[in-house]
């Protein structure tokens, strides 16, 4: 997908959530308020378009915490560029889901 591709609002929210540090499906649901039937397919699409990539948590970490390993998502370079374009398109995106830097700036203010 082209870096300046136009994303839907939902996809832009999910990108923003992942960028903000909500890196697995359930946390993204919690953050965005979207149902699982919307979040997971949207993440599949974003992964297909190479805007995000996934990786499995190491088994040893999960074993140490006595839980199953999770699948984590992160933005690719194309995903970050697309997110920048989406922020210009959806100015409220940053307010809905503040990114790490925004949260830091707000705390300092």
């Amino acid at each position: 997908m082209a870096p300046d591709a136009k994303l839907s609002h939902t996809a832009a929210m999910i990108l923003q959530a992942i960028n903000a540090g909500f890196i697995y499906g359930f946390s993204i649901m919690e953050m965005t308020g979207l149902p699982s039937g919307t979040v997971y397919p949207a993440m599949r699409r974003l992964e297909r378009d190479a805007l995000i990539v996934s990786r499995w948590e190491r088994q040893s970490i999960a074993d140490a915490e006595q839980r199953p390993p999770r699948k984590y998502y992160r933005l690719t370079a194309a995903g970050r560029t697309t997110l920048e374009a989406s922020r210009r398109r959806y100015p409220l995106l940053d307010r809905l889901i503040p990114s790490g830097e925004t949260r830091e700036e707000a705390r300092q203010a």
Partner: protein
Amino acid sequence: MTPRLGWAFHAFHLAVLRAASNLVPTRRRREWMREWQSELWHVRRERAPAPATSWRAEREITAFCLGAFRDALYLRQEHERPETTHGSAWGSPAHCIFGLSGVICAAFAFALLAPGVRAVNNAPRFTIASGLILIHRERSDGDLTDTVTMQDFRRWSAHSQRSFDDFAFYSIVRERVWPGSPAETEWSVAHASANLFPLLGVPLRFASPPDPRAAPAPLAILSCEAFEREFGGHPLSAASTLRIGQVDARIAGVAPCGAWALPGNVDAWLLEPGSALADGAAGYVVAHLSPRGQAEMDGPRVAIADGGRDSDDSFIGDRIQCQARGPWDIYLFTVLLALLALPAVTSVTMGETSFSSHKPSFSRQLYRWAFLAAKMALLLPIAWCVPVDLAYSAAASSSVGAQYAQLVSTFSICLLGMRWILLDQRQRCPVCLRRVCNPARVGDASRTFLGWNGTEMICLGGHTLLHVPGLPTSWFATQRWLYLDRSWEFLFAGSSEG
């Protein structure tokens, strides 16, 4: 809520996930299930920690699990998408060639199974020798009957002739025959002089040389029909023996289908030396004209004077021509006929122009013409195999009905096939040779003064638009290609290059 009920809900949620996983393509199912199970574990820990489980929490977890169905459904659709984009390969040149090759393979496979078709395909190609005439007694009604006696034949053969250099004789009688089985049957058997087939120039199928250790026996030649009917066309049976009347004859070969162009329907020819033939037999004489005789005979019929005979009877010689056309001759004739008829059913030119000065490269044009030639080349075997399958699967090649069926079906397949090939070629993008699709009506027939009306189709590879006028005008008579530049690329994101 009791812990036991909590476990029951957990089992239910796992069952929901497992049911949804059935929608996921097999390749991705294991990882998908692993992710959802992991997520379910975390959702349960967040929403319903073990001692504090509640109906509300279970309802939320159930809603979470039901979302798995949408996710699984999406992956299923995503999995099937390559076939949809493959749909654009539906009109690709490879698809077309593959389809035509498939028809040839199917027809060829059928030809291998059907004995009638197999006999036609295995029949040797031949033409009856030239300079042959059939001698018979002149009758007032003009009918051909077996009226030449054995004595006449012996007398002609014994003396050197001015106009003829060889004679052969045959006489047809009904004989009881035991074709290898105890049950007898009745055949039309031609008792013939041994040189009949060499004189006609007809090659024999499954011809077997005589065994030098075995006692010399009369030779029998089977007709194609009798060989298929009584022996199932099995090549090994061609060397076996056959009892014809009181004679045990060795089967020396099988006459090719449709080879017999002389009077009389014959099931077998019993080849005997001239001296062994019955004196009183009446039959036909086949004579080969000497070079002098050929020079003197300028028409299809000639009167023959018999100098050694006192009676008033005179003989007539009719030139022997291969009346029945073999399947191969019918095929060649019909293909030629269809080629001549093609301009009557469609325009044989590509008849197209371009809106712009852009032209495909020379190699692309060459590729396009090669594709057209390949389609035509594939049509030819189809026009042979399919009609032969249709016509001869249940009938012998000498059957007039089967020959008409072959002629009609070959003509239809050739004509319609070539028409389809030309129409198909006109609707293929000159750049990638993929068929244009998504036809859209453009314009209005009542408003052709400033615009045009017709159909617009697009190449899925994003190379061209094809405009076909609905109402040909003096300024827009034939279809036109519009070559798309790079500004159109955004419409075809994801399409493969042609």
